[in-house]
């Protein structure tokens, strides 16, 4: 019947995932755009024409120059400059880097907490389940923004803006990560409850394996599929949450801005006609979030029927 073992790469090539990806143009385009943005964010220090946060490189004389194509533009600053004379292209690249770091960081934290608690709640059941899920319920009733605002404001008041600015990126990852773990925990718990009933779990128990091994080695891999879908969308959500916080002044500081803080710092200048300071970062943010969501949609569609098949 069948011959030798099938290589991993061949398995991926033959898989439904790849087949569906090839056919879905939206997915392909979104992936390419996302890849471009991620790569340019990673290599921002190499790609950016200037380091916008090196005070020595900024000249206030260059402030509020419009992007190429408009009168008064300078070739050295293809996307224009902001109020301090910083090159927009550079600030946007660095800003994307920060936004993506927060997005991925927060989601990794959410996922670790969510998977851990979801596993424990689902597998242990009883009291552990009740306690963890009640904590999750309480947390879900607070909106992320509200929690972040309170924590951020309290921190700033206690330790000052400067201190806050230095650790802002970690604080934001922490806040957003902590706020959103219940979603993932609930999904994992639901999967665990379903998997717990299957005979392979019984077989593992009958073999004498201990609880830890059964939870992490046997059940966990089978609960991860929905997490990929949720995770993707959560990255976009985290980026937006952070942007909102920054817009309110509670996010990244001006010295290490994300796309959100760039939008905020440029907001005042719309009136004076320098629309590009706010709009260009805004556009980048929209495109970033859009492609992540589109990829998430495709992933969800692709994984859904397969979930039923096996």
């Amino acid at each position, binding site marked *: 019947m069948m011959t030798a*073992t*099938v290589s991993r790469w061949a398995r991926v090539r033959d898989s439904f995932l790849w087949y569906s990806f090839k056919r879905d143009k939206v997915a392909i385009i979104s992936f390419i755009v996302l890849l471009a943005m991620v790569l340019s964010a990673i290599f921002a220090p190499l790609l950016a024409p200037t380091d916008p946060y090196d005070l020595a490189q900024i000249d206030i004389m260059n402030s509020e120059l419009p992007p190429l194509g408009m009168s008064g533009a300078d070739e050295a600053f293809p996307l224009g400059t902001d109020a301090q004379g910083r090159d927009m292209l550079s600030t946007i690249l660095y800003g994307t880097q920060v936004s993506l770091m927060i997005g991925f960081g927060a989601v990794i934290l959410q996922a670790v907490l969510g998977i851990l608690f979801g596993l424990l709640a689902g597998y242990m059941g009883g009291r552990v389940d009740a306690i963890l899920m009640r904590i999750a319920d309480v947390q879900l009733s607070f909106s992320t923004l509200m929690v972040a605002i309170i924590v951020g404001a309290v921190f700033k008041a206690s330790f000052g803006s400067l201190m806050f600015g230095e650790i802002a990126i970690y604080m934001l990852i922490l806040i957003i990560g902590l706020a959103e773990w219940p979603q993932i925990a609930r999904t994992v718990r639901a999967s665990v409850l379903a998997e717990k009933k*299957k005979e*392979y779990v019984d*077989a593992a*128990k009958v*073999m*004498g394996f201990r609880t830890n091994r059964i939870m992490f080695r*046997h059940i966990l*891999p089978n609960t991860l599929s929905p997490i990929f879908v949720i995770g993707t969308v959560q990255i976009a959500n985290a980026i937006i949450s952070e942007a909102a916080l920054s817009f309110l002044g509670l996010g990244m500081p001006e010295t290490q801005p994300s796309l959100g803080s760039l939008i905020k710092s440029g907001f005042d200048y719309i009136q004076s006609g320098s629309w590009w300071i706010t709009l260009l970062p805004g556009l980048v943010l929209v495109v970033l979030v859009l492609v992540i969501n589109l990829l998430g949609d495709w992933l969800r569609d692709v994984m859904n029927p397969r979930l039923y098949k096996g």
Partner: protein
Amino acid sequence: MSASPLVDIRGLEKKFDLSGSLLEQVSFKNGRFQRKQEAVHAINGVNLQVFKGEALCVVGESGCGKSTVARTIMGLLSPTAGEVHYEGKRIDTLEGKALLPYRRKMQMIFQNPYASLNPRMTIQQTLEEPIHFHHPEWSKADVLNKVQEVMQSVGIDPDWGSRFGHEFSGGQRQRIAIARALAVDPEFIVADEPISALDVSIQAQVLNLMMDAQESRNLTYLFITHDLAVVEHFGTRVAVMYLGRVCELAPTKALFATPRHPYTQALLSAIPRLEDGRPNYIRLQGEVPTPVNLPPGCVFHGRCPYANDRCRQEIPELFATGDGGQVACHGVEEGRL
């Protein structure tokens, strides 16, 4: 058959609590607070012994508790009352390290071939893990050899080790599940409806495989099934269960030749035989009562054509009928049947 049994179940009882939380139990009716506690009485006093080398079949219809008995013996459930003994030692109270050696000696095969293999593990991993767990001192080469040997003995090509469960058919998956059970060299295997989910021609293959394994590895089986035709072919002794109690326990030939208990008679008559031109069976009156509200006295009295007052009040115990079998029936005991 040796004198002392390999597996000994005494007075086994198992209840599943349906009551819910305290808030759900308490209700205000007729001017008073009333507390409602419901339980599924899955096993209601079962005494069974499995002797070394035999294939004891436990048959019954849904709700009779046969699967629950299997799971309780294997420690997946803990009994509400009663004891489970293996080689003379009590095992239902053991845990962790103390239970570990028994986990190697007692293995289980499950009903659903599509759920009994971990979908995210390759067959190789599925088979290696138990061997490595129970023999941590073995070298990698030894483990691989064992996996190969056991795969070949169930008729699966060892080259397919890197495949996942879903790449195999139902019959092949069941073979792999059997291989997993055999990989740790057990003495006693509980098979919970292992062939019910398979096609007829595949059932024969898997059944033959199990019989071969019994001979070559000197295994003892506890075989749970609802298919009496399989029992007639495979079992040495048969226990017929109804609503959590054993109605009749006899050597296979005797049971099929002269079934004593009215339920056994009805069950046997209901098997569709190839020779029949029409359905020809003993019709039982009434419906199967739920294991939630057990009838008093003999659990079968509501459907039994021969029930009398004693049956309605007194629970019959198993007694020996003289030809090697046991029956729990007042009618048989009194000589009425």
